[in-house]
């Protein structure tokens, strides 16, 4: 009775408050507003080429955020701080494997994804089998990766991207969009499929929401959690490869720039850090939003200090929309 009625009422109601609670919608509206603002501040900001460039940058962040999203969805304070290190490492590996030759692309893809997956698996094993809190485990792993980078950098040159890869990332490929955008769309579709139409996806939500109940219902909790970290590492590895395609060559600790922003993109996309809720579509919008915001700030003519202050304050305001926890008193 009352519950059924409630359900129906909920479904039929279409009020403004409900709309504001839709992170994806809010992000999309904000994206449009920010583009308009950018265009006002600096004509040409919202030109097709500019938007394309922004989307490429967003795709790089979005690919890292895909893995981050999975780890966070899996709950138990899931978070992956090591993605920054993996992106940097993968960029170096990719540069060296390809070394400017197209024939090296396939080996580079394999090497990057495998390296990322390997470190991700280490994270996963530490978090599940040794029961180290994810923040601690991935933080420690970040330190290891940074050390590893120093070693590798001393030993080998940073390498160059294969021309075909650079073309894939930066030049139009299909319908005027570069390959990386298509890759991102493909990842988006795959993530949606994974989370909504596979048993794996259902189980990810289950362990993220109530691990004990999932365990009692026969969900292989550890295996799933390890594979989430493996996937996170693999996505970061892939992003490192794409990054070198975008930049041409890798530079020191380039991946650091993705560590916390990937988490912010997930949060702005409506997945709370507590896990078990949310999805990747919102995260994609979150990544675009974040990139546009940064881009506007570089467009306007103010000091670095002012830019940072505005960026920080804006992030806080954005989080007010949907990053808030529950009130103690309901």
């Amino acid at each position, binding site marked *: 009775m009352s519950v059924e009625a409630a359900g129906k009422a909920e479904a039929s109601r279409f009020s403004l408050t409900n709309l504001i609670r839709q992170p994806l919608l809010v992000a999309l509206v904000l994206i449009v507003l920010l583009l308009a603002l950018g265009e006002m501040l600096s004509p040409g900001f919202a030109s097709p080429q500019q938007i394309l460039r922004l989307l490429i940058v967003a795709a790089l962040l979005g690919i890292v955020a895909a893995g981050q999203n999975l780890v966070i969805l899996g709950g138990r304070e899931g978070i992956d701080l090591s993605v920054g290190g993996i992106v940097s490492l993968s960029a170096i590996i990719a540069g060296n494997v390809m070394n400017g030759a197209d024939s090296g692309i396939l080996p580079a893809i394999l090497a990057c994804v495998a390296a990322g997956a390997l470190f991700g698996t280490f994270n996963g094993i530490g978090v599940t089998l040794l029961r180290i809190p994810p923040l601690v485990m991935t933080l420690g792993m970040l330190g290891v990766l*940074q050390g590893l980078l120093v*070693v590798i950098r001393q030993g080998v040159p940073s390498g160059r991207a294969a021309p075909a890869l650079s073309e894939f990332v930066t030049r139009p490929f299909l319908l005027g969009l570069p390959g990386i955008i298509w890759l991102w769309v493909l990842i988006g579709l795959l993530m949606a499929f994974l989370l909504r139409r596979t048993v794996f996806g259902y189980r990810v939500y289950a362990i993220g929401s109530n691990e004990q109940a999932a365990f009692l219902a026969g969900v292989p909790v550890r295996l799933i959690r390890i594979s989430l970290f493996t996937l996170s590492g693999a996505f970061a590895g892939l992003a490192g490869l794409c990054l070198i395609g975008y930049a041409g060559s890798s530079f020191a600790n380039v991946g650091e720039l993705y560590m916390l922003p990937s988490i912010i993109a997930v949060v702005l996309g409506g997945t709370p850090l507590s896990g078990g809720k949310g999805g990747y579509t919102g995260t994609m919008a979150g990544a675009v939003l974040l990139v546009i915001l940064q881009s506007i700030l570089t467009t306007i003519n103010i000091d670095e*200090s002012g830019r*940072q202050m505005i960026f920080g304050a804006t992030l806080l305001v954005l989080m007010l929309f949907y990053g808030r926890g529950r009130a103690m008193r309901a």
Partner: protein
Amino acid sequence: MSAIETGTSQRPGLAALVERFPFLPALVILLALLALNGWFQPNSLGFRAITGLISTYLALMMLSVAQTYVVYAGDVDLSVGAILSLVNCVIIVLMERWGGGGIAVLMACALGILTGLACGLLNGFVVAVLRLQAIVATFATSIFFTGIALYVLPVAGTPAPTIYWRTYGGRFFEIPFVFYVVAALAIVLVMATRARLTTQMLAVGDDAFKAFQGGLPVTAIRLKGYMLCGVFSALAALCITGDTASGDPLVGGAMTLYSVAAVVLGGTALSGGRGSVVGSVLGALIIGLISSLVFYVGTPSQWQNLVQGLAILLALMLGVMVTRRVQR
């Protein structure tokens, strides 16, 4: 059945001990590292070397203490490094502007601490009052604070007045200044352990909602935790200014994550409700000793970061596992 007994007698001795003093595993690791340092380089246990270690890592010790006060209540503060940078810039600029005399230094330090308090207040406001998620919200405020630091001091390099770093690096009655600071810190921390606020913060860390239902002023307690964190971050800034003798708007950037690592090394649970500030101080020292050990064993320079990273990861894992093993 005589139920009222003092002491949880049925719990094994070691477990009860670690429960009472959560920093014990950290202390063991610290002593082992000291022994190893002494083994590879006997001089490293000398007065001079220890003084050097403490002057260098006093800032991290303070910063780890700062972090602990928010972790107690189950929060985290990723802006401690940015607060440290900001306060560093603020006092450097003020001391220079006011002529670098003794009074100027003291005034600048006081204002620096107030700056830290204000930063903590902002963090507490966004996390406890506005209920933003601590990790992302304090990351956002850290960007904001870095912006202010860059505004106060756009480029690194302004030196600290001589009187400032001379005092910090100097001796009084043959005892280095930093030892007094450590002693004062120890007294303050031990006293703080007995404070009502500490128990309240830990109760909030156990379960904030239950604490709220039980009548604790949860929001105010978390806010106070962030304010304490801001103050100790500012104290860390005073130390780093004494150590580096200059201003740098980005000096604290890398230290945030180290402060989190130190807290965990010290046996404090990131989920809140359990831990000790003393452990965090030990944790900071462990990080310092690991990097000096890596140096003393003769690791080639390009390998040092990797070995250090591995050692810290190992220590983190070991600490978490030992603490858990003993506690069950």
